[in-house]
């Protein structure tokens, strides 16, 4: 499915990418490029007429030196070589007409392309203007009056549009808060503790590895090694977190300090993505503070501790809204026993930073900071809604593959309009109410029969 998309977008791009080739019509192509241009024009000509030229490439190449045509496309206007029967008047006329049509078509295409480019530029310009004006509002109006304004209609609307990158980190920090009262000094303390541990770890490993040095030490080592391994596997395409990259040490520090700060949670795969996104938007100590507080939210704590029964409650609540919003797709998934854990785990653990393009993931984070955990599940439903028609045509494995590797060309406009269309209301009950009642059922069921854990 991924292939399908990337291929299609490539196909769409190809006429635009080869557009400059059309400019050569009727003119003498620059000598040094002539061979390449020949090929392009030949291909385009074949694609357009639906015929394949039977002349083998070698003879075309030879011809080039013999007759030196004005342009390859204009070859159609040439008389045939002397050893072949001459063209009839009718045929000559037809060739002239075909040639004119080709030139006209090419010109039309050029104009269209220019228009498209202009529109794109205009949109981009407008977007930049919007960001600039939003930035002014955030900086001069909202941030100085944060507590009073954060829940106003105006701010919430502006927030939904996406935060300007320059204030993003600041707003995230404020919205996540610091319930844990972590100070930059505290971060330094945990960081130095982590550094000590790394040092002692590298010393002990050189002695004797296989010998049993106590389970907890082995576990700690495993966790430290896993951090190292995962850092190199965090946004590998950005080349900034990998060894030697500018943010490698930072990511290592934040994750290491966290495992010292919260040994009860420790390092869990998926965390490196969250820390990386925060590092991209915040200073080191602020990133750590946001990271620790974010992971302390009930939903994140349940997932990163892999509290399975709690996770099942979240999935159950999600399914309530899934059925409500997308009943057809819900049934389709059920018929294949395609449970939400198969795709939600990845999405929730990494807060979409692994599954969505990074800029889009940041926009999801923006509203997640505004609305809380509910928005993570709403985003999931938005994704399902966006691809509902495609998913309805797929069987189990294709859906599973599709959802664990979403198309790269997903755009924020489309996704956010789908998210907006998702109603987080179920018979007048909101997400928190549905979730709480599920939790209550669970606790009561637990009292009645202690073995009823699913």
């Amino acid at each position, binding site marked *: 499915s991924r292939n399908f998309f990337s291929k299609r977008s490539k196909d769409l791009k190809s006429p635009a990418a080869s557009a400059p080739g059309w400019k050569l019509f009727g003119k003498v192509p620059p000598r040094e490029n002539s061979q390449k241009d020949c090929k392009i024009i030949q291909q385009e000509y074949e694609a357009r007429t639906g015929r394949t030229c039977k002349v083998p490439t070698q003879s075309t190449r030879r011809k080039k030196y013999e007759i030196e045509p004005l342009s390859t496309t204009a070859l159609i206007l040439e008389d045939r070589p002397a050893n072949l029967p001459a063209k009839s008047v009718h045929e000559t006329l037809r060739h002239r007409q075909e040639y004119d049509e080709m030139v006209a078509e090419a010109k039309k295409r050029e104009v269209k392309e220019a228009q498209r480019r202009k529109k794109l530029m205009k949109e981009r310009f407008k977007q930049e203007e919007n960001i600039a004006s939003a930035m002014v509002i955030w900086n001069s109006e909202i941030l100085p009056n944060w507590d009073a304004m954060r829940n106003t209609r105006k701010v919430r609307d502006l927030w939904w549009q996406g935060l300007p990158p320059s204030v993003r980190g600041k707003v995230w920090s404020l919205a996540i808060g610091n319930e844990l009262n972590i100070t930059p000094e505290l971060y330094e303390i945990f960081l130095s503790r982590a550094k000590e541990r790394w040092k002692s770890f590298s010393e002990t490993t050189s002695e004797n590895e296989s010998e049993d040095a106590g389970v907890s030490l082995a576990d700690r080592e495993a966790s430290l090694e896993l951090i190292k391994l995962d850092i190199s596997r965090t946004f590998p395409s950005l080349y900034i977190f990998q060894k030697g990259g500018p943010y490698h040490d930072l990511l290592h520090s934040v994750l290491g300090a966290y495992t010292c700060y919260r040994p009860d949670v420790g390092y869990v795969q998926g965390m490196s993505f969250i820390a990386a996104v925060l590092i991209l938007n915040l200073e080191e100590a602020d990133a750590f503070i946001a990271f620790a507080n974010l992971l302390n939210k009930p939903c994140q704590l349940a997932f990163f501790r*892999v509290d399975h029964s709690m996770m099942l409650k979240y999935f159950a609540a999600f399914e309530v809204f899934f059925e409500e919003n997308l009943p057809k797709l819900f049934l389709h998934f059920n018929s294949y026993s395609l449970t939400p854990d198969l795709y939600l785990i990845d999405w929730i653990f990494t807060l979409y930073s692994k599954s969505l393009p990074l800029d889009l993931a940041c926009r999801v984070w923006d509203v997640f900071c505004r609305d809380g955990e509910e928005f993570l599940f709403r985003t999931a439903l938005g994704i399902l809604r966006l691809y509902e028609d495609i998913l309805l045509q797929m069987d189990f494995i294709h859906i599973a593959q599709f959802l664990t590797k979403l198309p790269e060309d997903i755009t924020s406009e489309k996704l956010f309009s789908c998210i907006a269309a998702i109603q987080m209301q179920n018979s007048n009950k909101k997400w928190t109410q549905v979730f709480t009642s599920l939790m209550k059922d669970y606790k009561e069921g637990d009292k009645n029969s202690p073995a009823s854990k699913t």
Partner: protein
Amino acid sequence: MAKQYDVLFRLLLIGDSGVGKTCLLCRFTDNEFHPSHISTIGVDFKMKTIDVDGIKVRIQIWDTAGQERYQTITKQYYRRAQGIFLVYDITSERSYQHIMKWASDVDEYAPDGVQKILIGNKADEEHKRQVGKHQGMKLAEEYGMDFYETSACTNYNIKESFTRLTELVLMAHRKELDGLRLASNDELNLAELEEDGRKADGTANSKSCWC
């Protein structure tokens, strides 16, 4: 219309984090190798249709996250598999030691007839080797499994090991397959047959019983 496959079943890849499960899979399904893969969170999926003795077999492969913390989740998937790869890294003694734990989890959570195969990956990194080939063979023998040393990097023994596990699953389900040959229009959907009866409609085309 020609049917796309005769038999459908699920294989599962398990083993410590970083032993190369995702790399093995990518090499097998797409013939690609990326040295720095993104880490797997939860479970990823791939699919490939291969021909074994004239039978078109579609395999769904579930690629699981290796970290211990995730095992609470991934263990839930064992029961849905017909074949399991237990993967360690020949350059990591620890990953080899952990095979014992992985194997006992399989015993506990996977269905009885599940087929298993032991894989020692990264065979190309001879200079970093910590686990001898004989150790792998010995362990496999203990558990009554087949054993392959593989390299996703150099494409060594990848196709062989996937084909072997596929054959093992086919052999274990020979009776049902013979039934399939009689009614050749049907597809045998092992994956769905072994689902836990939660399905809403039309389970599988084959009527045979799986107990």
